[in-house]
């Protein structure tokens, strides 16, 4: 399977081609080159998936880690070297399929959505760069390679959020995303360094082998501030994952990232990049489970809190992309909880499996939701719910696919979201009742806010649409990806996922727990019912309820003032208490020393520069006097 390297090289070459020569190409040609390249990548990843899952992936019924390629990239000493390579195992192959599929859909969709925008070639170049980095991230053979691609993903996300670089809000959002995730990556880097300092390796295979015995033995007894070093290292690595995956309190960048073009939000900020944190924890799951189970518990609780927190905020947002952004945060948190409650081996590893399963299904229906929202925005030229309503007559295909996606995310049988969500709830139920009930409530809230969104866009009173022109359905090039993703959202739930992905790579049979399935469907139906009652006709009941709730509603609408809290922490605490003294020291001690030296030199030179007058006769005078003085001195001595 050496050809798997092509899956990385193709998008990189397209990025270089479009990035360097894009200006000379016609926009449409550039778009087609990018899309065609992605088509090749997608086909290649399906071939790899087929080869891996059905031909050469198993040895004695166990999924193996295939490494078709691994070479030494940078050698520092005999033991310290950084490799680059390709690792194929169930989760990385699954991610290849997800990323290339969603990316292909977004490439095709963008041909229509971004048509006529300035910088079309640049847009496709960045999309290819992102696809390259994301694919490199999932196939990384060692944690350092993952970190390299992790940062590349961050950069391409930054570039794409700030695609409309003349819009101040987009520029601010891209900076915010970059700084927040960089801050989290600082923890990730320290975590990597601590981990590999003790284990003397970066390699995933060595770290996870034999129930992570290398990590457990090499870190035994080492502790720092009352916690074991293994806990510190893995918690710091999780911090990186929490930054990318927008876990509370590092979630603040994701809603703002919606300033980017909508297809970008679908690809990066819903389906692929934001699940990198979940993927990271899953990749190191063995290490987490055996070396630092307390971190895993913490991940579970952070996830549950984030899921609830984001779901509550999503209820009050009025910008449709922001609703979807908070929904994404909430769903990723779901996956995190699943990892947190997971055991190891066989059916105990249900949480791990369901987390990956939800990642898989969520990628398709969330990409579909975003692309559908893009289609709506394309039609009405606004992000605000208040400008929409009654669109189902004008956008029949978008309406249908959006409804499928809403049902899928709400967890209604037989759509894909039902299966993965049910497995997560079941895993949580057997592990921790508090987490289970939290997720149960979140499931209801999810159904409610998704249908609030759905009804506000497609039902209710029709708005007067910009005078002369009526909203119209998007062109075929945009609706075909919607239909494909809708189809995927319907069928992916029936994949026997646990046969392929499991914590110990052995595969097991999953079955649907009827009580949990019924209770989750019940709460989802209640959520949908309430949304139907409140929003289908578009009355003013919601406003009345909002007024009754008063302060609570306002707090939720302002996202519980988390942005303001961070603003306060950075401006008033970090800037005032740490940065200001450092700035003072820099200005008044270091700069002052340098300025003093310069001033002394300048003053001295100013006072003696009159001597160099250019008057030869004056020089002669000086010379003569000097000679006489020396002569007299010589005579005296």
């Amino acid at each position: 399977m050496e050809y798997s390297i092509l899956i990385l090289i193709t998008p990189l070459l397209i990025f270089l081609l479009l990035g360097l020569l894009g200006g000379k190409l016609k926009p449409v040609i550039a778009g087609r080159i990018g899309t065609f390249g992605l088509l090749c990548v997608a086909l290649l990843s399906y071939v790899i998936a087929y080869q891996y899952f059905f031909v050469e992936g198993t040895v004695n019924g166990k999924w193996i880690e295939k490494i078709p390629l691994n070479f030494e990239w940078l050698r520092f000493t005999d033991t310290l070297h950084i490799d680059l390579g390709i690792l194929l195992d169930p989760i990385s192959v699954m991610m290849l399929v997800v990323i290339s599929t969603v990316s292909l859909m977004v490439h095709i969709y963008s041909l229509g959505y971004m048509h006529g925008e300035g910088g079309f070639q640049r847009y496709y170049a960045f999309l290819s760069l992102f696809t390259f980095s994301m694919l490199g991230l999932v196939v990384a053979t060692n944690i350092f390679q993952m970190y390299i691609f992790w940062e590349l993903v961050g950069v391409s996300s930054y570039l794409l959020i700030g695609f409309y670089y003349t819009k101040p809000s987009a520029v601010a959002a891209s900076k915010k995303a970059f700084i927040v995730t960089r801050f989290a990556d600082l923890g990730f880097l320290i975590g990597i360094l601590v981990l590999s300092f003790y284990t003397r390796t970066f390699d995933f295979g060595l770290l996870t082998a034999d129930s992570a015995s290398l990590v457990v033995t090499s870190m035994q007894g080492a502790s720092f501030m009352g916690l074991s070093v293994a806990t510190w290292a893995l918690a710091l690595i999780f911090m990186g994952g929490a930054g990318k995956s927008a876990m509370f309190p590092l979630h603040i960048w994701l809603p703002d990232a919606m300033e980017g073009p909508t297809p970008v939000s679908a690809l990066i900020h819903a389906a692929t990049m934001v699940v990198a944190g979940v993927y990271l924890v899953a990749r190191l799951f063995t290490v987490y489970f055996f070396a630092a189970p307390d971190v895993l518990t913490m991940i579970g609780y952070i996830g549950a809190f984030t899921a609830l927190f984001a779901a509550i905020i999503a209820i009050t947002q009025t910008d449709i992309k922001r609703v979807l952004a908070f929904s994404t945060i909430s769903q990723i948190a779901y996956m995190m909880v699943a990892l947190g409650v997971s055991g190891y081996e066989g059916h105990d590893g249900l949480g791990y499996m369901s987390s990956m399963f939800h990642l898989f299904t969520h990628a398709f229906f969330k990409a579909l939701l975003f692309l559908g929202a893009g289609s709506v925005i394309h039609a009405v030229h606004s992000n605000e719910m208040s400008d929409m309503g009654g669109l189902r007559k004008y956008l029949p295909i978008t309406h249908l696919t959006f409804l499928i996606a809403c049902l899928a995310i709400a967890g209604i049988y037989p759509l894909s979201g039902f299966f993965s969500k049910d497995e997560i709830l079941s895993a949580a139920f057997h592990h921790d009742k508090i987490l289970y009930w939290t997720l149960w409530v979140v499931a209801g809230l999810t159904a409610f806010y998704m249908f609030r969104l759905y009804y506000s866009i497609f039902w209710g009173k029709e708005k007067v649409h910009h005078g002369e022109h009526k909203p119209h359905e998007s062109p075929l090039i945009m609706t075909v990806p919607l239909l494909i993703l809708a189809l995927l959202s319907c069928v992916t739930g029936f994949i026997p996922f646990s046969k392929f992905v499991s914590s110990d790579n052995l595969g097991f049979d999953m079955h649907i727990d009827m009580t949990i399935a019924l209770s989750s469907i019940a709460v989802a139906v209640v959520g949908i019912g309430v949304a139907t009652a409140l929003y289908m006709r578009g009355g003013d009941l919601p406003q009345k309820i909002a007024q009754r709730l008063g302060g609570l509603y306002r707090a939720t609408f302002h996202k519980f003032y988390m942005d303001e809290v961070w603003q306060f922490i950075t401006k008033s605490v970090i800037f005032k208490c740490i940065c200001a003294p450092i700035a003072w020291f820099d200005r008044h001690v270091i700069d002052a020393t340098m300025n003093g030296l310069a001033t002394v030199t300048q003053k001295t030179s100013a006072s003696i520069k009159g001597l160099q007058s250019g008057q030869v006769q004056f020089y002669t005078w000086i010379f003569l006097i000097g000679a006489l003085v020396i002569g007299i001195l010589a005579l005296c001595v």
Partner: protein
Amino acid sequence: MIVQMEHYLVVSALMFFIGVYGFISRKNMIAVLISLELMLNAVEINFSVFNRYLYPERLEGMFFTLFGIAITAAETAVALAIIINVYRHIGDINIRKMNKLKD
């Protein structure tokens, strides 16, 4: 009266300091050049005199004098050429104004 070495030396010292005075006080560059010649000639007198009175059996001082005269002649030619060129460029040979080289 027998002419002693000291007489010559007094004459050359006078010539030298007249030259120095002229070099420092004159404004005209040709006058400055003449002062320079005075100083050089004073030095050459010294060479000859010391050779004649102190080492009459040797000739190095005399040769040095001849050598110096040749150099002086060449130097004067160059200096005059410079002065003429300066005059052509700025129409003046006042040495107080010739201070542009400091920049």
